[in-house]
């Protein structure tokens, strides 16, 4: 090749580049600002979700969250003809394989390619697209599992959006007190989210005088019952009378099995475990387990209006009754409540504003109550409410509750664990 050819090629290339620069300016000038009502047509309001479906490190069926959303949308579309005549539709579910970069790109694709009005449901361990959505004013609704949801007015989790590991939660020591425990062991994996959970629980116990002589927040994934034996010895030496875990159900189960085998029969409080599929599989092996949730349990003999509707429509749409699909139902309820509040011409910004004015959201009696004027930075909203359950004869059984009144509530700033109420959903 001659020098002349090479130079000519590069000159031509540079000329193209200059042309490109010019056309960039032109093209840039033509870019249309995304509409605040993107995804809203005369007949439909379109949403789309993202989550860790193909890979899920916590072994929960995140793909079932959309079942709850679809069931709620089916109810609204069928019984009310949609919202102001517009049917609600989930047009796309995108998989992020639980990877942060992929979550970001898939979230963007929902907005930029699928042109959804809102991102819903979100069910992922690393919600990296959160900042993008906030920057672009797109509302998102989903399963609140990480601190990515915090302090953004457009992100709505099923239990609120704040994750305050610095705030002591009186419900943990309250449970210990009810079970007669004074020395609680706290255990979690050696990942930061679990370690934060451990320190949060320790802080909560200590604030109310419950001792924590055994704390282990460095447990590695992939241990066996046998390899856990030295830790059981340490628990025995520390004379703990209750154990609290910050782990997935599988890890907690292994620990419980190891404790049972070693003759350490003490109450165990699981941070995660309200899973009926899991219970169906292990039944009585879970006896002695205590856990608490933020929603009305399925076992409540007096289900709320929202819970009855959920059960009915999950059956009609063929979805699985599960805490994950319940979370989908709850956020769909919030979405619709917000849409109904803003009238016939919905926009994203109006929706976000409207939801952030709701100060006592219960999804028609399902959740203990979320004050969305504060819930982006403070979930307790001055109160800590939990519904308690235990496993007895292989079944979940409500504790400390009355029919239709599943929640035990304490003032968030209380100094006395005796100052509690048992009540139905609602902050009022």
């Amino acid at each position, binding site marked *: *090749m001659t020098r002349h050819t090479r130079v000519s090629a590069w000159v031509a290339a540079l000329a193209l580049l200059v042309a490109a620069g010019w*056309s960039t300016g032109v093209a840039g000038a033509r870019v249309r600002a995304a509409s605040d009502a993107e995804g809203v047509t005369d007949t439909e309001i379109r949403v789309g979700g993202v989550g860790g479906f193909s890979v899920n490190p916590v072994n929960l069926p995140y793909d079932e969250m959309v079942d709850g959303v679809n069931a709620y949308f089916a109810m609204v579309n069928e019984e009310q003809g949609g919202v102001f005549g517009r049917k609600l539709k989930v047009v796309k579910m995108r998989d992020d394989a639980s990877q942060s970069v992929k979550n970001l790109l898939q979230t963007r694709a929902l907005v930029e390619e699928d042109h959804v009005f809102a991102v819903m449901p979100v069910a992922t361990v690393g919600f990296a697209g959160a900042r993008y959505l906030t920057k672009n004013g797109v509302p998102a609704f989903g399963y609140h599992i990480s601190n990515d949801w915090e302090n953004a007015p457009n992100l709505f989790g099923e239990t609120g959006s704040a994750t305050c590991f610095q705030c002591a939660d009186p419900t943990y020591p309250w449970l210990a007190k009810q079970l007669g425990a004074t020395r609680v062991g706290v255990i979690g994996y050696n990942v930061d989210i679990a370690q934060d959970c451990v320190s949060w629980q320790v802080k909560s116990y200590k604030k109310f005088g419950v001792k924590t002589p055994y704390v282990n927040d460095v447990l590695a994934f992939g241990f066996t019952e046998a390899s856990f034996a030295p830790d059981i010895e340490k628990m025995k030496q520390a004379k703990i009378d209750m154990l609290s875990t910050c782990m997935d159900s599988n890890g907690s189960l292994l620990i419980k099995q190891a404790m049972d085998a070693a003759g350490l029969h003490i109450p165990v409080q699981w941070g995660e475990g309200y899973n009926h599929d899991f219970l169906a599989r292990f039944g009585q092996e879970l006896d002695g387990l205590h856990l608490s949730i933020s929603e009305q349990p399925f076992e409540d003999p007096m289900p709320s209006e929202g819970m009855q509707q959920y059960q009915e429509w999950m059956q009609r749409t063929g979805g699985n009754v599960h805490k994950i699909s319940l979370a989908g139902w709850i956020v769909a309820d919030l979405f619709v409540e917000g849409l109904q509040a803003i009238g016939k011409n919905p926009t994203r910004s109006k929706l976000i504003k409207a939801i952030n004015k709701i100060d006592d959201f219960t999804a028609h009696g399902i959740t203990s109550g979320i004050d969305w004027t504060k819930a982006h930075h403070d979930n307790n909203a001055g109160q800590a409410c939990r519904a308690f359950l235990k496993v007895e004869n292989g079944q979940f059984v409500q504790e400390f509750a009355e029919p239709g009144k599943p929640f035990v509530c304490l003032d968030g700033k209380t100094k006395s664990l005796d100052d509690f109420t048992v009540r139905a959903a609602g902050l009022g």
Partner: protein
Amino acid sequence: MLDDALRYVIQGVPIGCVYGLMALGLVLTYKTSGVFNLAFGAQAFLCAALYNELLDSGWSILPAAIVAVVIVAPLVGLLLDRLLFRFVRGSPWQVKLITALGLLVGLPEVVKLIFGREGVVNPPALVTNPEDVVHLGDQVLKAKDIVAISATVAVVVLLVVLFRYTALGLQMRGIAESPRMLELAGVSSERVGMAAWMLSSFMAGLAGVLLAPLYGLLDANSFTVLLVVAISAAAVGRLTSLPLAFAGAIGLGIAQQAFAGELDPSSPSELVRVLYEGLRPSLPFVVLLLVLILSPTFRNRREIVDPLRGVDPPPPNLAVTYHDARLRRINAIVFPTFVVAVVVLTQTWLSALWVSRFTDGIVLAVSLLSITVITGLGGEVSLAQATFSGIGGYAAAQLAVDHGFGTIPAMLAGAALATVAGALVAIPSLRLGGLYLTLATLAVALAADAVLFKLDDFTGGADGIFMPEPSVFGIALDTDRKFFLFAFAVFGIVGVLVLLLRKGTTGRQFAAIRGSEVAAPSIGINPTAARIKLFALSAGIAGLGGALFAVYLGSQFGVLNESNERFNVFFGVLLVVVVVTLGSRTVDGAVNAGLGFVLFPLLLEELSFPVELSIVGFAFGAITYARHPEGIVEFQKLKSIRAQIHHRAVTARVRALERTGRARHRLAPPVLVALCAVPALLLLAALLVAGVQLGPTEILVYGLVLGIPVGALALAVQHEVRRARGRGLGTLPAVGLLVLAGVGLVLALPDQLARLGREQGVRLGLGIGWVNGVFAAFMIALNITLQLRRGTEDAPTTLGWALMLAVGTIAIVSWLATVLWAVAEYRVHEAETSAAAEDAAMATVVTAAPAD
């Protein structure tokens, strides 16, 4: 004290047996096949998943166990041996290792596709009451532990007997040393190799069903971690001694229990806490590293090498090394045009989201260049490249946030730190080589995951490191388009450096050592210094890639979280597989791998296929490393260049014959070529006006119905050519052949299909043309149907547009190429025939001529 020791023994033996069973399987495979079977855990996972599935389907324990362990597991071993490993028996260690890595990555994804995606919690044991306990003093053993211990001991005894006292055992040992020597002794090495694989796969199956219940979770990662722990035990047994490997496994189990028992996680002593937190989970990896570095066995021994194997041929020349004036002229125009086209498209036409996707691929490609250096140039396989990326990434992020470093200085500092880390890994491993060095890098990566990437001060913990907006020379990289240009420039610079490295003295030193570490010092090369350089350089590039990723993530998300998935050891393994599949020796191989990794799953998702198929595709692509160590793309490039050069030479000869009036060839009429382009152009036009929404069923139905007539047009071309040669095909067989060729091509690699016929070039070319034609027809049919069905509301997505353009362009190019290729082959054939006839006639004339 004695009580404590006894307690640790009782607690440690069950877990030691768990490690032991896996270690024995590894050693068995290595002893008998020379393959360090990193896919052993994946095989175990497959059998455990099957066992679980059978029990879920209502089978009882015994039949399910027999099917999973006694029937399917050996069958898997048989298939692996027949389809894969028998071809690599005499191959270099890299080939065996990469093949095993491909399986390690691919098999679990296949299992997920078959049995479902979610891990199974508390999988069933081989006993009916697994939680029953037996008391040993104040300690307890569960029934499932006792079964695992008993099975392991039984396996050890059986293996020792097999190897010490049976002819088959002796033959199995012999086959690892030299299959050819075994054949000389009258033993079928094929049969012995098959038996060895079936036995080791049986052990994998047994390990799978025994171990899953002990871990309480049936998922692929648990088995992979377990496998690495087993490697430590196998290393204690020098990878060849079964009793020592077993002893090592038991010792490891007891040591872990002692560690856990003696150290208190809530101790006020920071040292004790750090030891507990860091060393307990990483103890097996540290042991592996220490054994590899300190044991004279590994320092002074190379892998098992067949003495009759002969010398490995050098790797094939790269396509780029063919000095062909015409190709260089084309490249001189095409390459700048390509670069500019990329810049123009990313700055104008492509959507910001697509630009960001390409950026992700390019950012990844920078890290992948480190594999190009260490594997492509140096011939070593490092599984710690993602770790070096992590070191570079976290360091750059910390420096940018805490010390106010600018974007470029922070990235360079991150790369420098990774370079130092690479050198630090290389120095103690200097005497190691090949497989052992790879295992050392695996240990380092796992230890870094367990310790370094758990340090909040380094990674920012759960909250992560909040990155400032990146800027370069005062220009904020605040849009996708700007960041793409930056990433593209970084890749360009590193790519050029890698090219210079390859051409320069250092690259040649790496090549010399790769060729022969013994011969290299004889020409004045210091292997020690070269290996340190190799590791440091590749780690530095990986670190720079990691730093670029951190900046990219910072620009998009604002936060670099702890233990980001891109810095994980498993991701590092996956990267090696992806790069090796697409070409580990070239810079464009890294680009292909980076973009392929990002875009291929998207394509699958758009086509409604499971995204796991992308991993499966890459994994099984890596398996072709045995045949094409240069990578599939590079292989095709080489093949194409050689064909072009060959055709040109023959065409020149034809022209020479024409000039002398000795040629009798007939050219295909140019109008035929033009006619072939018309349907392709029409296809492209149709594609451009319609949208793309594909589903697998639609592809199948519409493709079968409408693909045939379009493909038949391409067939007509072949028919014309063949008719001209007097061997035309009837219409019915022609259509049948079309369908068969289309299906075959979809299922098989092009070079495998080429074996089907004698006129490889024509068949291959036409085959590709048919498939593209058929595929293009899918698109049209689908679009027309979908447009009718859904109205005009569903506008094509950007991916849809990209697909249409790509397919249309490929269709045009390949159709033209198909015809030109066919014509060229025809000319060559005719020319050769006529030349031969002329020569024969001349010979006859000469023979018949009366002597003077």
